[in-house]
């Protein structure tokens, strides 16, 4: 071993690692906490007063499901989204976020795009039913926030979803 490059290489890593430590101390920011409402089914049974978030989840249905790799709005989904549109027109105080999700049987980056497309298609359908697109925000979680964690098709199909979350439901 006569050349010096491994050592030079090591020298730079000294800088590199020292910095990594320094970073651990300061690289942080309180954020939106990532997917706070991503799974939230809202344990809504019982008294769901009209116009409440529970009412929306229980009596309207806050989510639609997709078959593998599909992003189109099915007939069954249309029925749910028609009810969502009707409800949102009745309660115009709500802004919504549509969260698009994928199941875990896909790779991460593609699934993020897939979730985005599901959310967008859902938004576009609601808009076509008269909901002002300005009230609708979309976000994709890809496969990052499953609601069902078993290992078979019954779970995967629950995870391929678009969830309409009421943003200002707490107010």
């Amino acid at each position: 071993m006569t050349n010096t490059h491994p050592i030079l290489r090591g020298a730079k890593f000294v800088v590199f690692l020292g910095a990594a430590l320094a970073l651990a101390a300061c690289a942080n920011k309180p954020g939106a906490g990532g997917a706070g409402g991503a799974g939230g089914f809202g344990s809504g049974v019982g008294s769901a007063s009209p116009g409440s978030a529970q009412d929306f989840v229980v009596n309207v249905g806050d989510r639609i499901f997709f078959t593998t790799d599909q992003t189109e709005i099915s007939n069954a989904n249309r029925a749910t989204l028609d009810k969502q549109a009707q409800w949102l027109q009745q309660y115009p105080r709500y802004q919504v976020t549509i969260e698009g999700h994928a199941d875990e049987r896909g790779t991460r980056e593609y699934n993020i795009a897939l979730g985005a497309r599901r959310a967008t298609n859902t938004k576009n359908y609601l808009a076509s039913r008269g909901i002002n697109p300005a009230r609708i925000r979309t976000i994709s979680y890809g496969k990052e926030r499953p609601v069902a964690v078993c290992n078979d098709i019954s779970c995967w199909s629950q995870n391929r979803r678009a969830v309409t979350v009421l943003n200002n439901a707490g107010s």
Partner: protein
Amino acid sequence: MTVHALDNGAAAGPRRFTRMSFGAALLFAAAFVVATVPFTQRAEALIELDVTQGNVQPLPIAIPTFIGGTPADAQLAADVSGVIAADLKRSGLFLPLDQASFIEKITNANQTPNFQSWTVIKAQALVTGGVTRQSDGRLRAEFRLWDIYAGQQMAGQQFYTTPENWRRVAHIIADAIYERLTGEQGYFDSRVVYVDESGPKDKRVKRLAIMDQDGFNSRYLTRGNDLVLTPRFSPAAQEVVYMSYGSDQPRVYLLNIETGQRELVGNFPGMTFAPRFSPDGQRIVMSFEDQGNANIYAMDLRSRRTTRLTNSASIDTSPSYAPDGSRIVFTSDRGGSQQLYVMGADGANPQRISFGQGSYSTPVWSPRGDLIAFTRQSSGGFAIGVMKPDGSGERILTEGFHNEGPTWSPNGRVLMFFRDTPGANGGPQLWSVDLTGYNEFKVPTPAFGSDPAWSPLIN
């Protein structure tokens, strides 16, 4: 760290000294003194590597436990030689021999071995060495590499460093041995950034973490407040580009590991994801999602100008540059299913290259340029494989329930990826496999780990 070449008795040339010092605040603050003594001649490499070949016969190598300078140093010395042996074994190119078979007992780090006694046990190379904690608190580590059949020393070096640096010294020695015996660049003194995962499957906390390539010395780069995904190193290994949630939309961010500064990449009116650096470090290529379609954009880091590279009503993502920067491989479902395409770095002339069973994603161009690694999803599960940039010569290296997201070792010989396990308590763990597909190892991490990205070599 101080390094001296250990002479094998041949004529010593003039010594050159280079001194570089770093601030005391740094973790491994140490002055490096490099001394080189030219050897008389280099023997031939003992291993001929052919990366396209499916199988390589590993070279039998004897690595007796390193000698402690004092009895108190014995454990540390044994730990150093243990890390060296583990590095070489995991490469798949070396077979460290069972120490119980050794005939000669090495008792002195500087003794010339009795080559005959190593020939008998069919060792082709021998590594001897020692570790001593000196009175000034520094650690001295030394090794010699012997060619058994030629009966001569092939390499020898002496290192002075702080005791907590012992794993790095071991990796540097393993690299020196690897390079001397294969004629190729080593990769053991390198790092991996990855995503540390904790908490229940439906509410995972994800943090960026960085560790040595063998899974040791793992530490966090973020605290887990925001969901973070897909970190990738810059070519200088000083920065990591990654995707982070936490603001209105998940976006691509750049994290300077040295300063801890984080900045948003680009000014896109929506989600950006799947980032990767260009080989010259001047650009970041990534996907921007708009109206349900994802297209690939490149952003020049100096001018901040963005260039749109694909324009399709489909999902185009996971771009990865060829090492010469001339082409980009990416995933697209423009043909109906996810497949791999190669286009010019300016977006020209996209050509589909994957034609096997199933769908293909997460392409990564080898740093050697000769292969593209990918994830292939089919009815059988998720496989990691490689193909040539024209799509020919596809080989699957590992497959099972879920393998995803390969990243290349800096010398293009080994892939690291993550393997997920099913069910509520399942989770991803990091694995490595060499290009033969025969040498597969789990990379230990403190918790679940995913999305590994190997650092480049720092020259």
